[in-house]
């Protein structure tokens, strides 16, 4: 079984704090991390490999520093990594990103399964996984919380919905996107990390994956961000209730009534 895991480097949230005026989160620094959901995707792939054999390939698109997320994947069990990096990919929206990743998956060849995190924590779109599936004309299962039986021909997954879950069997090749509940990613070891540091990570450019220049980067992106604003602050100061239990509860219910919340 050949499994590709798509991973993304995203800004971390470690150093964030709250602005006392606007009560919004301020991010400081530019520390980048692997998208948290992608760690579950890697673990899911490595577990499948351990169960039925095969190869796990970590794939990312981003600037050259994004090799570190591929190394993280190799540290915890991916066999190799591939980075798509080219100025021509710059400004890609989810349409163009999923196109480029799908082209790379085709170039890798003989891929049975693609696993992505549910979404990336920067864009929060959850569109790239299904987008890859659509470009490849493969079936998909999103919000996967459990991978059941799997063999060379099909995989059974448990999909999470707002109101419950369903079990579905997909014919391979297919694309899965996974949620946190699916597993507990193993903790990286120093031995694994040292081995990952030794690996050469190939960098593929747009022409290497035979991408149509009209379909990548800004050209290939139907959407444009026209402006960004900080959201309106929560504004007012907190009302602090620190009297007796009875006083607090009365005041709280009063506050909620005044706003017609109850």
């Amino acid at each position, binding site marked *: 079984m050949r499994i590709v895991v798509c991973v993304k480097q995203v800004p971390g949230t470690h150093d964030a704090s709250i602005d006392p005026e606007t009560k919004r*989160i301020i991010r400081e620094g530019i520390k980048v991390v692997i998208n948290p959901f992608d760690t579950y995707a890697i673990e899911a792939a490595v577990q499948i490999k351990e169960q039925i054999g095969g190869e796990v390939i970590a794939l990312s698109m981003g600037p050259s520093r994004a090799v570190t997320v591929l190394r993280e994947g190799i540290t915890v069990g991916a066999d190799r990594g591939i980075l798509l990096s080219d100025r021509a990919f710059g400004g890609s*929206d989810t349409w163009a990103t999923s196109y480029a990743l799908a082209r790379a998956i085709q170039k890798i060849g003989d891929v049975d399964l693609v696993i992505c995190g549910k979404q990336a924590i920067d864009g929060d779109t959850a569109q790239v996984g299904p*987008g890859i599936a*659509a470009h490849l004309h493969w079936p*998909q299962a999103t919000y996967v919380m459990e991978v059941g039986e799997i063999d060379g021909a099909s995989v059974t997954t448990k999909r999470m919905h707002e109101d419950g879950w369903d079990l579905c069997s997909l014919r391979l090749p297919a694309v899965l996107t996974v949620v946190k509940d699916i597993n507990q990613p193993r903790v990286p070891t120093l031995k694994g990390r040292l081995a990952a540091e030794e690996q050469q990570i190939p960098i593929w450019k747009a022409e290497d994956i035979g991408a149509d220049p009209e379909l990548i980067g800004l050209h290939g992106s139907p*959407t444009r961000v026209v*402006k960004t604003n900080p959201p309106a602050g929560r504004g007012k100061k907190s009302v602090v209730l620190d009297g007796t239990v009875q006083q607090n509860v009365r005041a709280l219910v009063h506050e909620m009534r005044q706003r017609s919340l109850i």
Partner: protein
Amino acid sequence: MIANTTEARAEYRNVWVVAEVLAGEVQQVTYELLGSARDLADARGSEVWCVVLGSGVSSQAEALFHRGADVALVVDDPGFVSFVDEDQAAVLERLVRCHKPEIVLCGATTRGRALIPRVAVAANCGLTADCTGLSIDPENGDLLQTRPAFGGNILATIRCSDHRPQMATVRPRVMNELEADTARSGRVISETLQPAERNGHKQILKVFRDSDNSVNLADARFIIAGGRGLKGPDGFKMLKDLAEQVHGAVGASRAAVDSGWVPYYHQVGQTGQTVQSTVYVACGISGQIQHLVGMQSCDFVIAIDKNPDTPMMQLADVAVVGDLFEIIPALIKEISAT
């Protein structure tokens, strides 16, 4: 499809809403989207169409007309009794190519977020996820889509000028539904799923619907969420009682989920769900950044904690200082007394 001239864009008309259907029932988010679609269609001088993909759904068209739809485009197929995204995407793509809507809206639910990206890719059009604001640019008629990114830290406005239709998923509980107007009616167009659209690569083996309303965070107006301060699963029983009282859902911090006090699908935050309820009551949640990014867009935040200095207490609109094991039962009593 590419539509990079005024003439090409003029071929696309009407605002579509893809209905969220569960077990043959049209869901609340659909009515909210119809409310928003009505405004957009009025601004564009066009119609609102509601696309209903489901099994046994033909009878539901009336309710859609009452809530603002002019046309119900119904594909009633027994195969749609459960969610087969590939087949639904295939039929939607054909309908989009055939009827050429200008705008397509869908709920930003687990199903909507799985289905619409497939259609957008196949039909080569732009898609904006999780919108919280939609309007028409008076200059050129483009749809302006506003959405939070970076866990609600940034509001981005997005447009899609040269492709049609313009597609967006919209967060539940953000748009306002119209009051039902029983005098309104409309046209029903029935379509069928073509054999070629039955992809056959996915089989739904089992569907489990949780009858417990306290789990649906996306649809909830009230979320009562608990963290480490609840000390154990019993604390969550208390939250559930409060949630029942206000018809809300129960949320949880990562710490509470990781401790096994409550299942993962209650988790709010970076590795759980992003929520946008009207009221968010945080009980014994200190407010790690990873939790705050999942709930900071809620309209009104109430925090209950012994420690007045936690980030959550700072962020809250109302911060109640005290022992939540005393306050919550008292709150339940006070609310039920009136």
